[in-house]
Each structure stands twice: as structure tokens, then as C-alpha cells.
């Protein structure tokens, strides 16, 4: 289709050319040369000529059948490599070499067609075998750029959906281990966050807000046309482009799977021409964890002494005495611990536990081919060593694909992927460091770990105990293989039929070993004295078969119609087994020798599901200005009940290219493009497990002997059948405006959308009085009970701020705002509720709402009277109780048991209208303190979902240097940071600005030995505004100039360095000091800064 349009356009320009150059070629040549020279001098593109696609004719030759030589340069006069040069109307073509030169045998023809991605296609007349000089012109408006959409492609100018595209260059710009991380901040409305610093952790992806309560909100990945793949199995270097389909008019073609958006990944393919070898590699270190260290040394002593003073209200003259008093009588430390203090044996646990991580990625690919067959092969290795010992992820990937043209109408080919992953996992024990004693010896003289840092404290176990060899081991290995052969027919012009089978196999195994000396064992938190091991394996296999028929034709000159029909069938099956055993005699065999004497447990499992789909789509374009598209998909799935198996998902959209209207003629000088789009569509979210519609019985997970023989209780499964279960369905309206100004200097789009998701699935707990799965677990019936509305605004702006030969500056700015609202909770039979506190669902609120106690600050010295009415001390956390009011005039006395007055005070809290049995207002005083309680005093605090996101990327080139800076902001979200509430008597994070009489802060409470915070006080500390600004990464690269490369035999060599997460600025910076709000201030695997050096080489 793309070629078609180019051809049409070029025919038009050819006519112009003839008019311009046919009669006076030499003059024309001169004119153009002047223009090129001028444009080079001005270092700006020639907008006017580019806009109309005018082609400079460089040379003309006669029609003799001989080879023609030529040279192709870019708009700056630099030679262009890899430009496709074809004899017009034939399949004969070549590609320019490293010097931008080519030679082609004209075979009696005299018109050449030159094309290159991102440049206008040029047509050149040859003459008499004379050498040809062509200066390519960038297609600044990218109007002919092709977007990959569901089951086809569309020219960007004709696109009607909210679709964003990211090219390989942008993904590769900064090194990432997971391609989606590279997209962070680049696509408005796609919220990508990395929440854990664990090796191999995948980013969390959310498009246009939550639309589901229970099921996964991640978008559907379509890799090379096959839905349901995992981008985690791809090396980012193998990706050619990524398209993100955001609105339902474009995703409805994926029906039941399209609701969370669709990410279409196109991998690199072979191309005709010289064989090209690419090598990409980087190595980097992960360091500077965003995690607070714990008080140690003098700061810790100050803290302990402050805690002792606070609890004893005691200030002795001799300061050295108070230290020992605080340690002995306050913390009850053993003599061994006191000795460690005397000997200055300080420990910084965070730094002991965390090491410097390493990440590396190597990828080599070869691609090339002839006109008839093209191939692509690549192999990659990725490794990430986390900040912890035994936290490691490795991946080997292999991709191969080739296409062979059997004849003019038939081509066949295949794509294949092999991915192998090996991951060592571990538990994070880092949070234990936050309240740990900073004293003792962590290592023995011989470098081995000391289990007990202080000899006479058996309760003080080394946090790194899991690192001892054979203490703990958790490893997962997985292999996946995909083979996708296809046949494609193009029998007549405009008609294509493609049949694709994708077969996939996967194998995984997970094994875990718990030896005798794990941290949990040593601290007595786990069944002690037993070694135990788990070993599970799983196989998955499945296939899908897809047939796509595309027909593009014209009726007259004005009507352009494309029809698409799709059938798809998919089947997937899985088998798994799980073994568990305990009471082993040795550590050294870990999970490879299941000879434990006790509790051999084995389970096996099989699942299967299948689905069938049909889809039809029609696209119509009138005069290229009025666009219409409509589609419908029917999906049937085995996971639904037989009588409710099929659903249809329609969509339609219209577009109007305003800028092409005759009446817009006078705006052409500054307005390149203006297009209005309106789309509507229905999509589904198909996260329903197989067999959900059957009522099943299962053997109980734990057996019973009733004192004698092993017996197997048969229980009803936790999920009770729901025959009417159906998919969640999203009804989406999308209003879009595409614009381009100033000859490609500014282009972008604005989107407004509303999504109404009905029948949202929820695991509805069944009333317990009619049965429970067990005492701790209710039965659940997956039901379509809720409704969620999302609406939002997205802006994408691409600007070319400075375009000079040796200096360019381009920016991409994205803004997204989404409002999410739960609008209905229907328990069934039209029973609705306002909120379900236990399940954290509140009508009118976003899905991830925080409901809890609000912290107001710290009780200050002048608030002692108020604090004591809650039974709180000065210096502890002040929690808001909205329903309480303060009456400053109320006066009261306190009494002892004998009725003697012990004090007289004024001021008390009361709840208006709360009276005792005699009708008198009840007051809360020092004698009658108010107890904060969960039923009445919790409130809606905020939401995890940000109000808006901004991504701002700047790319600079300066001579051969390139610089890219990616920044993003997430604003208005709340986090519940576990790191924010580690207040203890023993120790706490160093960054806590704690209250003392001389430091009346509102940040963190005073350490008071022997005082433990109330639940309300503790919980209120978790919630904090998590808004932040971040420089995600800065990359500086250098590309070697051609003349040097030529000597090295390379076509490209670029060296670069990247720093990730260099700057983090949190709105609540005083509370979030040293933490990363992107990880929700989690106390587990911290995020870190990464410093990476890499190389991109092409031969």
C-alpha cells in the first residue's frame, strides 16, 4: 500500500519535473544545485519544495542499456548509506554503499526511484550513462510514514486512532534491559514505572488508567502480528518499532483482549542489499541505592540517649554515664554489645548487605538478502546482577527470520525466537537493617559470615545469613521457543492474503531451597531445624492460526477503500508439576537430591483453553480528506460458559483532514497538517482463567489423618461457579487532533477520551454464613459487578527546535492526565453498596484508593494538653480525627482513686451530639482519653494513580556527538511507603528528621524508649504525597566519522555512556530523603542509579 501511494505521488511530481527540467535539464540542474547548496548553507530543510514533493533532477541519460553510477547524499551533503535505488516499474534495485555510491544496470530503462525511511522518495531520469548525483530530502512531515495497526498497516496521514510510534533508534538511544522501560515518558498516557530494583524485574505498565479491579491491567502485546507474546523475551536491540494503540477504535480489532491497549512490536527483518552486521553492547554498574542507611556511630548514640532521656525525663550531669545507662537500662543491651560499643565495632548494615550491581547486554545481528529472499539472524545475552548477592538475572535470546519469494504472487517465510532465562532470586532482608543494632562484627577473620554479630546475643542474627553458601537458594529457569511460518499471496494489485501459524513451546522450572541457617530459621520465624526444598516444572504449548485478507482498491480517483478480513484460532495448554520435601540431612545437594524423609508432596496440573475469532474491517477515504473506518470482531472463548461464549466488539471512527481542504489554501505556509478524529469502540478484557464456569472439587492442600492414616479431604474449590460470567467490556470514545506547523518544526497530537468499563470482574466473596473455603478464606464467585469510568487528556508535541548542519535539538514532550472513578458496585441481584472498606472499594474514587489515618504532624510542646487527651505524649505522631472538635473553654479536674484532685485543666475534645445516658455532652480529657479507632477515624487519603504525568525528552547532536536527556514527572499520586514508618527504640533510618525539644519538626516522632506507637500513629506515617520529578537518564554518544570508519571497514561506530536516575526530586523531599518515590518507597529491593557504557557497531 505504501508503495502504491508513493507511486501515485511520484507520478504527479514527475509531471512537475518534466515541466521544470525536461526541456532545460542543465539549467534545472543548476537551479537545483543552487537550491541544495543554499539549503546546505542555511542548514535548514527546504520546506516549500519538500511540502510539494518537488524533485530535483540531477541528471538525465539516454535510454541505452548500460550501467549508471550515482552518488546519494543527504540534505547536508553527507553521503547516505543504504538508500534503495530501484529502476522504476521493476523489481531491480541496489543499495548505496558506505560512500553513498551505487551502480545499477539500467536494463533499457531510464527512470530511477530512490527511497529511504524518513526521506521523500525521489525519481530521477538517467541519461547516457552519465553519473547521477542525488540529494535526498527529509520527509519532515512524515506523512507517508507507515504505522503498524492490528492486522495491517496504515499511512500515518490516514490513521484514525490514537496511535503512538517509537522507532528502534529511540529505544536504543539509552540502554535498557526491557524495551518497555525505554518507552517510559515517551508516549502520552502510557504509564511505565519500575517499582523494584530486583534483578529481572519487569516494569509496571498501565495505559489510560485502571479499568479492572482484579485482573491485570497490562496492555496486550502483539509481536510480529501474534497476540499474547511477552516482550520480556525480546532483546531490545531486535526491535524495529513499537506502536502503541491507545483507543478502542484501533484496539477493537483485538476484541476481547484489547481493553488495556495494544502494544504492537515489530522486530527487525532482513532487507535486500548488502549484508549488514550490527553489534550492540553495553556494560554498566548499578549503585547508589535509593535506600536510607541506618543510624550508626555517634548519630546512633545521640538517638539512643535522646530516647532514654525522653522516657526517663532525665538529664544527668555526666554525659558518658548517660550513654551506658541508655544502652544498659534503656536498650537492655548485653555486656557483649556494650563491649562492641567500647571497641568501636560499628556496622553500616545497608552497605554491608548491598554491593555494586552489574548489568550488561550484548547483541549481534546479521541481516541481508536478495530481491527474492531476505534473512535476519540475531543472538543476544543480557545479564543483570542486582544489588544483593544471589540476585541475578540472565537471558539468552536468539531470533531468526527469513522471507522467500516463490514467485511474483507467493512468498513464504518464518520468524522464530528462542529465549532462555536464568534467574537467581532471594528475599530482601534489607528492611531488617532499618531497626537493627549498628554494633558488632559482621565478618569473621577468614572472610566468612558471622551468624551472630555479638557473641552473647543469640537474638541478634546477621541479616545476611541467607548469603551463607547453601543457606538459601531460589532459582528459576525458563525457555521459550516460538516458530511462526507464513505464506503470503498477492495475486492481484491491492489484494493480499496472509496465513500465519504461530507455535509456541515453553518450559520453566522453579526451585527453592531452605537450609538450616536461613535468616528466618535463625530468628525462629520459620519452622526450625528443617531443611526443605521445592521443585516445580511446567510446560506450555500452544498455537494460533491467523488468516488475514486485505484488499485495497479505488473507485474512481476519489474513493479509496481497504477491506480486511481476519480469522484466528488459538489453543493453549499447560502442564505443571510441583514437588516438596523436607527433613534433608545435607545442605550441599540443595534441591537436587530429594531424599528428605518427610512430607514428600507431589502435585500435577493440566490446563487448556481455546478461542476463536473473526474480524472484519473497512476503511474508506474520500479525496484523502474524509476518512472513515469501521470494524467488528467476534470472539468466542472456551473459558466462558457454553451458553455465553460469543461476544462482538464493534468500532468505528471518522476523520477529517482539514488542512487539505481548498479553503485552507492560505494557511499552507505555516500549517502542514490538521486532522480531526473521532472514534468509538468496544473492547474486552479477557482475564478469566480456564474452567471458571465449572463447579469443581479439589483435594485439600493439606491432608488430614484424624490420628491414623493419611486421607484426602475433597473440598469445593475456592471459586464457586458463575455460569453467566462474561468479559469486562470497555466503551471508549476518543477525540483526537493531529497537527503540524512550520514545515515540520512542530507536530503533535491532542487526545481526549472517555472510557466506560462495564461488567468489571470482581472476585465477589460469598456470604460466610453459607460456607467458606476455610476459616481464613471465603468462597469467591467471579462476577461482573463493577463499573469504572476513565477520562483523560493527552498531548504529544514533537519539536525540532534547532536544525543546523552541526547542531540539532529536538524535543518530545508528553502530557497525560487521567481521572479514574469507580461508578458502580453491584453485588448481584441489584444489590449495590456505597463502599466496601474491607476490599478498598469506594464509589466515586479511583481504584487504588488509600483509606487510612491522616498524619497531621508531631505533637509540639505547646500542644501537650491536646496530646494528653488522646493519651499521646509530646513528640509523638499527631493523627487527624475529623469528627473531633476542640473546646478551649471546657475545664476539668483530674482525680486519683480516692477522689483527691490531682490537677486542673482547660480545653477538651468532644464530638458534637455525642452525649452520655443523662444527655450531657461527652468530653475527652486526660482522664477520659479518646481512643482512635478504625471504624470511625479512617478517611480517604488519596490515590496511587497520579493526577498527571509529563515526559520530556531532549535530543541534541553536535558534530558527531549526540546527547539525550529524558525527564519525567508524576504528579498528584500518593504512596504508602513502607520506608516511612520504621520508628523503633533500637534504631531507625538515618534520614529521619526526628523530633527533639530543640528540633520541633513535624516530620518524624521523637524516639522514646519503651514507647510504642499506636496502630493509628504508625499507619498514618505511611501515606505521603509521592509526586516527583526525575531525570530518568542522560546519554552522551559519539559517532565516528565516515572517513575513519572506512578504514575500519565499518559503516557505523558509536560509543556512548548513560546515567540512569541521576536526579530525583520528590515533592515531600524532607520525608522522602534518599528514597525513590517511583518504587513507592518500598522497603524491599531499592532502585538505584546506573552508569552504563556501550557501543553500537555496524559493518
Amino acid at each position, binding site marked *: 500500500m505504501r*508503495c502504491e501511494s508513493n507511486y501515485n505521488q511520484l507520478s504527479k511530481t514527475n509531471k512537475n519535473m518534466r515541466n521544470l527540467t525536461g526541456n532545460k535539464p542543465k539549467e534545472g540542474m543548476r537551479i537545483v544545485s543552487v537550491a541544495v547548496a543554499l539549503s546546505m548553507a542555511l542548514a535548514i530543510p527546504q520546506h516549500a519544495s519538500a511540502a510539494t514533493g518537488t524533485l530535483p533532477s540531477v541528471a538525465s541519460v539516454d535510454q541505452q542499456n548500460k550501467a549508471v553510477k550515482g552518488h546519494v547524499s543527504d540534505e547536508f551533503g553527507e553521503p547516505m548509506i543504504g538508500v*534503495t535505488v530501484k529502476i522504476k516499474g521493476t523489481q531491480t534495485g541496489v543499495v548505496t554503499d558506505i560512500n553513498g555510491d551505487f551502480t545499477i544496470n539500467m536494463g533499457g530503462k531510464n527512470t530511477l526511484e530512490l*527511497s529511504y525511511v524518513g526521506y521523500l522518495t525521489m525519481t530521477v531520469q538517467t541519461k547516457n550513462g552519465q553519473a547521477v548525483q542525488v540529494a535526498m530530502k527529509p520527509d519532515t512531515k512524515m506523512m507517508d510514514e507507515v504505522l503498524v495497526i492490528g492486522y495491517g498497516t496504515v499511512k500515518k496521514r490516514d490513521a484514525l486512532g490514537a496511535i503512538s510510534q517509537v522507532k528502534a533508534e529511540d529505544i536504543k538511544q539509552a540502554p535498557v534491559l526491557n524495551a518497555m522501560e525505554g518507552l517510559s515518558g515517551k508516549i502520552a498516557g502510557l504509564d511505565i514505572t519500575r517499582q523494584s530494583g530486583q534483578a529481572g524485574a519487569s516494569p509496571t505498565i498501565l495505559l489510560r488508567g485502571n479499568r479492572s479491579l482484579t485482573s491485570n491491567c497490562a496492555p496486550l502485546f502483539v509481536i510480529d502480528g501474534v497476540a499474547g507474546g511477552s516482550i520480556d523475551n525480546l532483546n531490545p536491540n531486535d526491535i524495529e518499532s513499537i506502536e502503541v494503540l491507545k483507543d478502542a477504535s484501533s484496539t477493537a480489532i483485538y476484541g476481547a483482549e484489547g481493553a488495556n491497549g495494544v502494544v504492537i512490536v515489530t522486530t527487525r527483518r532482513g532487507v535486500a542489499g548488502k549484508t549488514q552486521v550490527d553489534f550492540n553492547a553495553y556494560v554498566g554498574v548499578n549503585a547508589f541505592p535509593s535506600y536510607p542507611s541506618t543510624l550508626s556511630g555517634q548519630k546512633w548514640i545521640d538517638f539512643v540517649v535522646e530516647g532514654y532521656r525522653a522516657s526517663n525525663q532525665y538529664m544527668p550531669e555526666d554525659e558518658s554515664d548517660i550513654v551506658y545507662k541508655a544502652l544498659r537500662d534503656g536498650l537492655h543491651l548485653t555486656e557483649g554489645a556494650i563491649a562492641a560499643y567500647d571497641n568501636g565495632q560499628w556496622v553500616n548494615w545497608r552497605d554491608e548487605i548491598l554491593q555494586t550491581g552489574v548489568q550488561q547486554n550484548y547483541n549481534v545481528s546479521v541481516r541481508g538478502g536478495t530481491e527474492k529472499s531476505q534473512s535476519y539472524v540475531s543472538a543476544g545475552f543480557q545479564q543483570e546482577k542486582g544489588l544483593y548477592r544471589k540476585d541475578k538475572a540472565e537471558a539468552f535470546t536468539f531470533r531468526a527470520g527469513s522471507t522467500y519469494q*516463490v514467485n*511474483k*504472487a507467493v512468498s513464504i517465510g518464518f520468524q522464530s525466537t528462542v529465549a532462555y532465562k536464568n534467574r537467581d532470586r532471594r528475599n530482601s532482608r534489607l528492611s531488617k537493617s532499618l531497626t537493627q543494632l549498628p554494633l558488632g562484627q559482621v565478618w569473621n577473620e577468614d572472610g566468612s559470615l558471622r551468624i551472630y554479630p555479638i557473641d552473647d546475643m543469640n537474638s541478634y542474627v546477621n541479616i545476611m545469613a541467607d548469603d551463607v553458601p547453601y543457606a538459601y537458594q531460589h532459582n528459576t529457569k525458563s525457555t521459550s521457543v516460538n516458530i511462526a511460518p507464513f*505464506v503470503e*499471496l498477492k*495475486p*492481484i*494489485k491491492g489484494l493480499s492474503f496472509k*496465513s500465519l501459524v504461530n507455535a509456541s513451546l515453553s518450559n520453566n522450572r522453579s526451585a527453592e531451597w531452605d537450609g538450616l541457617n536461613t535468616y528466618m530459621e535463625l530468628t*525462629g520465624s520459620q*519452622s*526450625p*531445624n528443617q531443611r526443605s526444598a521445592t521443585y516445580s516444572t511446567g510446560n506450555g504449548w500452544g498455537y494460533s492460526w491467523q*488468516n488475514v485478507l486485505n484488499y485495497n482498491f479505488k473507485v474512481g480517483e476519489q474513493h479509496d477503500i481497504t477491506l480486511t478480513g481476519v480469522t484466528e*484460532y488459538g489453543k493453549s495448554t499447560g502442564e505443571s508439576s510441583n514437588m516438596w520435601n523436607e527433613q534433608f540431612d545435607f545442605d550441599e545437594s540443595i534441591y537436587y537430591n530429594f531424599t528428605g524423609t518427610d*512430607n514428600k508432596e507431589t502435585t500435577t496440573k*493440566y490446563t*487448556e*483453553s*481455546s*478461542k476463536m475469532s473473526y474480524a472484519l474491517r473497512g476503511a474508506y477515504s474520500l479525496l484523502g480528506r474524509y476518512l472513515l473506518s469501521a470494524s467488528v470482531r467476534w470472539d468466542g*472463548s472456551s473459558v466462558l460458559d457454553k451458553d455465553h461464549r460469543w461476544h462482538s466488539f464493534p468500532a468505528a471512527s471518522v476523520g477529517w483532514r482539514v488542512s487539505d481542504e481548498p479553503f485552507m489554501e492560505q494557511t499552507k505556509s505555516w500549517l502542514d497538517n490538521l486532522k480531526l478524529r473521532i472514534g468509538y469502540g468496544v473492547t474486552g478484557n479477557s482475564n478469566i482463567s480456564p*474452567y471458571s464456569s465449572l*463447579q*469443581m*472439587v*479439589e483435594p485439600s492442600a*493439606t491432608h*488430614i*489423618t*484424624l*490420628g*491414623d492414616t*493419611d*486421607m*484426602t*479431604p*475433597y*473440598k469445593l*474449590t475456592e471459586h*464457586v461457579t458463575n455460569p453467566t460470567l462474561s468479559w469486562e467490556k470497555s466503551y471508549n470514545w476518543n477525540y483526537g487532533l493531529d497537527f503540524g506547523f512550520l514545515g515540520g518544526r512542530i507536530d503533535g497530537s491532542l487526545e481526549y477520551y472517555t472510557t466506560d468499563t462495564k461488567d468489571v470482574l470482581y472476585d*465477589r*466473596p460469598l*456470604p*460466610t454464613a*453459607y*460456607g*467458606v*473455603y*476455610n*476459616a481464613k478464606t471465603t468462597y469467591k*464467585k467471579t462476577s461482573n459487578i463493577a463499573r469504572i469510568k476513565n477520562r483523560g487528556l493527552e498531548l504529544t508535541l514533537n519539536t525540532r527546535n534547532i536544525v543546523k548542519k552541526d547542531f540539532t535539538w529536538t524535543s518530545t514532550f508528553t502530557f497525560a492526565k487521567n481521572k479514574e472513578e469507580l461508578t458502580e458496585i453491584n453485588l448481584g*441481584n441489584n444489590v449495590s453498596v456505597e463502599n466496601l*472498606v*474491607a476490599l478498598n472499594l469506594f464509589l466515586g474514587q479511583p481504584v487504588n484508593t488509600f483509606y487510612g489515618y491522616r498524619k497531621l504532624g508531631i505533637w509540639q510542646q505547646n500542644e501537650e494538653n491536646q496530646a494528653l487527651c488522646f493519651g499521646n505524649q509530646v513528640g509523638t505522631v499527631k493523627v487527624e480525627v475529623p469528627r473531633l472538635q476542640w473546646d478551649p473553654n471546657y475545664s476539668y479536674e483530674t482525680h486519683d482513686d480516692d477522689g483527691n484532685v490531682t490537677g486542673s485543666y482547660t480545653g477538651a475534645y468532644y464530638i458534637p451530639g455525642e452525649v452520655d445516658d443523662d444527655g450531657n455532652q461527652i468530653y475527652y480529657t486526660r482522664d477520659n482519653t479518646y*481512643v482512635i479507632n478504625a*471504624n470511625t477515624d479512617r478517611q480517604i487519603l488519596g490515590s496511587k494513580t497520579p493526577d498527571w504525568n509529563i515526559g520530556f525528552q531532549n535530543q541534541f547532536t553536535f558534530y558527531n556527538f549526540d546527547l539525550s536527556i529524558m525527564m519525567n514527572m508524576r504528579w498528584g499520586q500518593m504512596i504508602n511507603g513502607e520506608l516511612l514508618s520504621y520508628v523503633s527504640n533500637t534504631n531507625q533510618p538515618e534520614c529521619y528528621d526526628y523530633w527533639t525539644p530543640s528540633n520541633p519538626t513535624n516530620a518524624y516522632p521523637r524516639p522514646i524508649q519503651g514507647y510504642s506507637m499506636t496502630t493509628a500513629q504508625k499507619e498514618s506515617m505511611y501515606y505521603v504525597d509521592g509526586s516527583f520529578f526525575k531525570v530518568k537518564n542522560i546519554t552522551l554518544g559519539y559517532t565516528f566519522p565516515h572517513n575513519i570508519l572506512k578504514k575500519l571497514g565499518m559503516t557505523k561506530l558509536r560509543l556512548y555512556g548513560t546515567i540512569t536516575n541521576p536526579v530525583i526530586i520528590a515533592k515531600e523531599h524532607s520525608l522522602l530523603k534518599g528514597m525513590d518515590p517511583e518504587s513507592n518507597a518500598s522497603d524491599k529491593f531499592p532502585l538505584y542509579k546506573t552508569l552504563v557504557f556501550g557501543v553500537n557497531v555496524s559493518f
Partner: protein
Amino acid sequence: MNTIYIKNSMKDRLLWLLSILAPLPLGVVGVDLLTSCSIDETNYSSLDQEIVYPTEAGFNGLVEACYENVYYLYGKMDGIDLMEQGTDLWMNGGRNDSHGELTNYNENLNTSTGVVRVVWNALYGIVAYCNTAIYYAAVPNVSPSGKADSTRTAKVAEAYFLRGFANWHIVENWGGVVLNTTSVAQAGAVEKAVRATEEQFYDKIISDLKFAAENLPETQGDRGRVTKWSALAMLSKAYLQRTRLYADGSAEKKQYAELAYETARQVIGAKQLYQSDATQSGSTKYWLPENNKQNQENLFIEAVDHVNGYNPEWWNRGRTRQYYQMAIGSAAQNFGIASDGWRYGRANASVWRPTLYLLQECFDPTEDTPDTRFNDSFYYKYYIGSKSFPISKSTWASYGKDVSLYNTRRPASYTITGNVKTALELRGTGINYYADDGSATDAIFEMEDKADAMGCFTPNWDLDSAWCAQQKFLAAGPNQYMDKVGDGPTKKIGGLAKNSNFRSLMPSLKKFSCVKYLHSNQECEQDIAIIRLTDIYLTAAEATIISGQHQTEGLQLLNAVRRHAALSTDADKMDVTAADLNIDFLLKERARELCGEQWRWYDLKRTGRLNLQYLSEDGKNPFITIFQQRHLVRPVPQEFLDQIANADEFGTNGY
């Protein structure tokens, strides 16, 4: 750039034709596949209830599933909270302490209280499974032989027993709430909940238990399965408990008491108590570790598998013990009691401690009492388990110790050899120090046989402070570790000790620390008795007080229990007279016999003692300062209220 144009040459035509035909086979296969491509799924791993339950194995598995939730009620803290706490026997560290909701009826007892929900769920879980079993018992047997299954009646009788048992707990805790008789497998989701009356509950309970008594065998192969005697015992308890519904002296009250008596007599006539002899009382024998798994007095137990851990929640059983243990971590640890030792367990918190009423009014607070039951039920001599236990001179003095004895305290460490694991067949290899003579019995489990091996002494009789000061171990009687004057922080007799150094000290209930089956310092795989014979003796005795009949026999039964609690040589000292055959004495006897065994709250409720006046008497739980009408029942769990449409109408039971 590879659009194909049809050319006119013959060769091109042929190719064109081929290219059209080539996909045809594919298309034909495709059409065939598309029509036959079923979107069905094969299901191997999951089992349809209609396939499983009508089979013999499936039905047996279903009846066994009825027992599963019993394990959430015993050997766990949830059941203790509702069944044993909030009574006259136990207290904790303060009004708002951990578990203050149920121990002290504080304001946090509401619909969101977690333990209330767990017990509600466990009980209704039992009921629902029993309903399913009862439903499928009526479905024709599809055993391969095709013959009628005569064992099915006896099997389903187990479900009838458990349903009666669970409903009894439901009605006692929540009053007239949901009386569910349908199977969740058939009924599915219920939108609106309906209440039943307490009488309706009891009618169902009694008819279920009668069915069970008539159809259950007298013995079962598995000791955890219920028998005819379990059913009769529970039936007698149900009859007695039902008397609380009727006015004192009314005909119904007497009638149900008489039924309780008669039913209890059937059990008493058929089962034997352990006989006291000159060296061991019957009670001591009952609690011997070797009798734990094979016990003639038990009528209904939670049978725990200590060999393979085939229990609900696997080895995580018997956590009960840690909640009744003295918190060793602070005071006792200074004197060498190992906080990680197995014998005295790991106290998670000093959750529950015996009241002065239990220690000194129920039990005889003298050293030479003939009643062995305090000794059978409590640790009060704690032996050293730590290798070293440095204690500073100032700390030594702060416990009221004679400072001149400081250096004469026991050596800082013993030579510790061997491991008690093998000898006692314990699981694992924890910190189980024992004496270096190699012998491994319960008696030397820690360091009992060593001179000076005692680290802490907390009897239920008062100790002289001067005597205490001269002991090398930590010694405190109730007069030291409790407030017997009224000058402690609660200003109440029986409150916390004035001297905070002694507040963590107490005797620890050891009924759930059967040494032979300890699994860790937290867990224990002993069997837990739910109904035992002495309870039925006392049930019968109590019934005679209410009915006014058979009082001679009633007194005999009471004295039989008391004689069972003393050496045969002391039997005469135990007898009481007809004057003692009254409710107050009987409640004390039940405390001596059954404290900690999860009947106390029901006992107080039945005898009308659940009120502020009784509970706040000196010596009882000093932290119960409120007890209102609503506290006679438990809050309906919020979780359940959230799940039904008519929550407002159903109500919270006043919470």
C-alpha cells in the same frame, strides 16, 4: 515495493494459476479446521463435584473435609479468645493490650475484630461442609460394585455430629443468627440472610446430635473420628446449655437438665477414668505425654499428626502454647531461662496470665495440697536453658536479691552435651539442652536434675520476700508477681504488681506443651482434647443441681472427679459434702479441671455469671471495666455484613 502485476506471458499465467491454487489445500484444510475447531477445553486436573462426591472415595473425602475447620478452633488463639477469654480465669497486661477486645471487652470489640471473624468462618465452614455431606449422602451411591453402601449412614452421622457441634458454638456466641441447612454446592450465592431463633438452633442441634448418637459406631479406627460417645457427650452438654434459655425453676429448665443428666450417665457408664494410685493421680496420668495420643478419657479430640504433619496448616499446630507462656525475654532470661528453649516456649507476648481467682481461689494456694491439678496444669519451676546468662550486679539487686549472693550465683555455663531430640522423638534439632549424663527424659529436658538448675520459681502460693532474697534463682509468689494489696497500677486486688520487675512473672499453663510432641518453641503436635470424660461427670453433677434430682449421684460424680485429682492415699482429703454441690463450687471445680480448655466462657454464660458484677470482683480480671448486654453475644463479622444485601436488617448484634 513488490507489487505484482499480472503479465501476459504463458509462463506468468501458469505461475499466477499456481499461486491461486497453492493456498487452496490450505484453505480447504482451513475451512475444515475452522468448522471442527472446537472452543472447548479438556479438563483433567479439576474434578467436577457431580463426579467426585457420589463415589465412595469422594464421599469419604467430603466427610473428612467436615473436620478441617475444627482445626482452626483449637490449638490456635482465635478459639481461645472467644471460648476462654473475657472470663474470671485470665487477664492480660492492660485494658487495651493485645487481645483486649475479647479479654477485656474493650471498645475495639466490634464487627471488624479479626478473631471473631475467623471463628465465625470456621464454624460456618463446618456447617456448610456437613450440609454438603448430608446432601450427597442421599445421592445414590455410584461405587463400582453398585451395591448399597451400608457404611454411608455411619459416615454421614459424623457430619451430623459436627454440624450440631458447630451450631452449638454459633448459637452460644452469636445467639439467633443464620441457621444454614443447605449445601453451598447447590445453593450458590445467597443475597439476603435470615435469622433463626435460639430455640430453632437448639432443636436442630439436638436432633443432629441424636441422629449422630444413634448411627455412630462405639469405636472408630481413627482416634480423631467421632463416636457414639462423642455424640452423647456433646448432646448432654447441649441439653445442659439449653437450660439457660429458660427461667430458673421452670419446667423446661428442669426437663433439659434431666435430659443432660441421663445422657451424661450413658457416657459415664461406658467410659473409664484413669485410676489414681499411690504415686500418680488419675489427673496426672491423664496429662502424661505417653497418654496424649492414646487416651481413655478423651471423647472428642483434635487429632494431630505428629509423624508426617498431615494436618490443616501442616506443622503449624498447637500455637496455643505460646500465648499462655510467661514472657521469658525480660526478667526470667536474666536468670538463665532460654527464651528460645523449647520447653517453656517462645512467648509472643505476655498475652494471657492466670487471675488471682484461678491461682488462689480455685486452686489451693498451698505447697502441700493433695490436689495435683495445679502441678498438672502449670509450669511454675523454670529450669535453665541458656548456655550463659550474664547479669549485672545492679540488675541482680533490682530483683530484691541479696547483693552478697551475687558472686555465688550458678556458674555462667554448663557443659551441655547430647541432644534430646532422639530420646524424645522430637522433630528437628533445636536448642534442647539437657544434662551431660546422657539420659534424656522429660525430667531432664532442660536442666532439672542439676543442682542449682532452677532459674525461676513462680508458685501459686505466697512467698516470703526475705526468703526470696536469699535464693539464687528468681522467686516470686502471687504476692510479688500480682497486686494483692491494691497499690499496683490498676489499684485492684489481682491487678499488675507494683514492682514492674515482677510483672512478667507468672505460672505458665502447660496443657498445650506436651513435651513429647513439641515441634518448636512455638508449635506442638499434641492431640488437643475438646470433650473429655471429667467434663461429662461435672456436666452431670451440674445438671442435678438444676433439676433438683439425683443429687446423691451428683455429689458422687463430683467427688469422683476430685478423687481422680489426688493420689489414692489422699482420696479422702478430696471429698466434699452436699453443701458444696452448688453452682459456685462447681464453677471452681470446672476451673481446676478444665481451665484453658475452651469451655469457660460458655460455662459463665450458662450459669448467668457473664456480668460486670461477677467479672469485676476482686481477684478476677481487673481490666474488665465494662460489660453490657451486647457482650453476651459476639459482633456479627463485618465481612459477612458486607457480603449480604440486608446488612442493616440483619444487624450487628448490638455492636
